[in-house]
């Protein structure tokens, strides 16, 4: 690369390699009708999901079936107890995190819902949390309830026996494509999306 000739006033000045410029972003978030009704329910300490056509119940509801895009019509109150389907004990600090370490975040399948929510598990040593554990919501004091899932402080064990047969949502609806190992050709049917019957060549 050719040497750049600097004006005399800049000669001998240390080169600038990088500068640190913190970025900040303030934004408005529009909850939308489905989330809004869910959050109003939370204000009344109720957990309200929505059933998509075909039967599955989404909490929090998103107003539509994520697979087929059809609008949901029916609201369903689900239980405030559920089963841990999986979890992670977090032991890593990072910029912007306000959580005390370690903490256990769990995927919790509320009774009556078909999709797990992620929430904090407390009132049990972090290393005793397990898949299948039954847990219940612990709410903030009534005067502190706001339209946010943070109004549930955390989930704690109910003391019921574990649900050892718990399956993650979708486990029964997953690949289900049968085996390719041993030389079964991926057929047109495999390439087509079995959820919608579409796709493929």
């Amino acid at each position, binding site marked *: 690369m050719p040497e750049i000739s600097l004006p005399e006033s800049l000669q001998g000045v240390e080169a600038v*390699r*990088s500068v640190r*410029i913190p970025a900040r972003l303030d934004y408005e978030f529009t909850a939308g009708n489905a989330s809004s009704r869910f*959050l109003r329910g939370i204000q009344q300490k109720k957990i309200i999901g929505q059933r998509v056509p075909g039967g599955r*119940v*989404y909490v929090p509801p998103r107003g539509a079936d*994520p*697979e087929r895009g059809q609008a949901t019509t029916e609201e369903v109150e689900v239980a405030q107890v559920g089963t841990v*389907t*999986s*979890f*992670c*004990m*977090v*032991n*890593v600090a*990072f*910029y*912007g*995190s*306000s*959580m005390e370490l*370690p*903490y256990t*975040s*769990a*995927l919790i399948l509320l009774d009556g819902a078909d*999709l797990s929510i*992620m*929430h*904090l598990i407390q009132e049990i040593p972090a290393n005793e949390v397990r*898949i299948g554990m039954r847990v219940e919501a612990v709410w903030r004091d009534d005067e502190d309830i706001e*339209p*946010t*899932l*943070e109004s*549930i402080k955390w989930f704690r064990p109910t003391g019921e026996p574990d649900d050892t047969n718990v399956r*993650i*949502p*979708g*486990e029964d*609806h*997953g*690949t*289900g*494509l049968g085996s*390719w*190992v041993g*030389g*079964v*050709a*991926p057929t047109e049917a*495999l*390439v087509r*999306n*079995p*959820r919608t019957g579409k*796709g*493929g*060549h």
Partner: protein
Amino acid sequence: MGKERVAVVGIGQTKHQATRGDVSMAGLVREAAQRALDDAHMTWTDIDAVVIGKAPDFFEGVMMPELFLADALGATGKPMFRVHTAGSVGGSTAIVASQLIQAGLHERVLTVAFEKQSESEAMWALSLPIPFTPPLHAGAGGYFAPHIRSYIRRSKAPDHIGMLVALKDRQNGIKNPYAHLHEHEISFDSIKESMMLWDPIRYAETCPSSDGACALVLGSEKVADDAMAEGRQPAWIQGTAMRSEPTLSAERDTVLPLGGALCAADVYKQAGITNPRKDVDAVEMYVPFSWFEPMWLENLGFAEPGEGWKMTEQGATALDGDFPVNMSGGVLCTNPIGASGMLRFGEIAMQVRGTAGEHQVDGVRRGVGHAYGGGSQFFAMWVVGKDKP
């Protein structure tokens, strides 16, 4: 099907490391692109179009960097556009570039993917507070750890599988001069004793945070035939496929996502692969956390569901195994996120061309490149081979 044939005729990558303080973003992408052009025996003026990809802009804190990278990539007066599909972007960018030739629009396309992670903080960028939701999300590791735990429970895999993958990939990476991590002292015990970051994911089972770029020159059949005539083996693209899924769906199996399986089935069909385990010689797959090796072995049809970990344990996926996986050291050694998928695609093309150097596996006639992104919801794959499709 009336599609034009396409081949990889040039491959370049940067030296990947935690901080490439010696180059700007423009210098980084240009370093990879220049190497790919040199490899293809071409100059900037030979290129018809440029396709660039990278992961979210928050990873550097610069919105739409393609605007100021256009000139660095020689795109003046040429078509250029950007692709984004989260972590799979390096793969999908290469596929989009190949489609420009496949469609008969161009003869020679330069495609580049990069990340300069040192300029921002990916973990922060991936953990922005979600309105009305507790701030529990802890980056990609925090998201994928429960999926891995589900896999371990379902497959009944022993604990040491993840550690074996990490050991294998880190040892492979030592043979790759471009890899970010060269951990000569790595051992099973050092991995086992490393800190549990996102239980069950240990520090040593986690990908690094890298600055780096990868570039490919893709050519039409004529361009590739000319390269072959000059003794430079092209890697013929025998199939490409992409699939997506919703992040949150009650019908989604996050351990073995349907989208990944469909993507594999599609690309195998195009390439005439009927028995993936036998018909594929080597694979570069996207394994940012060690346990994803057995998970993807199953998802991509190389092993029965629940059996992928046995291939790892038996050494089938080692460099000298009968089904080598991530010969380059993979994402576990090098993770400039946006480039990681293209590195998989490029590394498998190098294996097919026989130009992988010290981590070259003998006799690779056909290989698979794989990338995934988002919450295991975007998938991109290609099959490349020595033989013209």
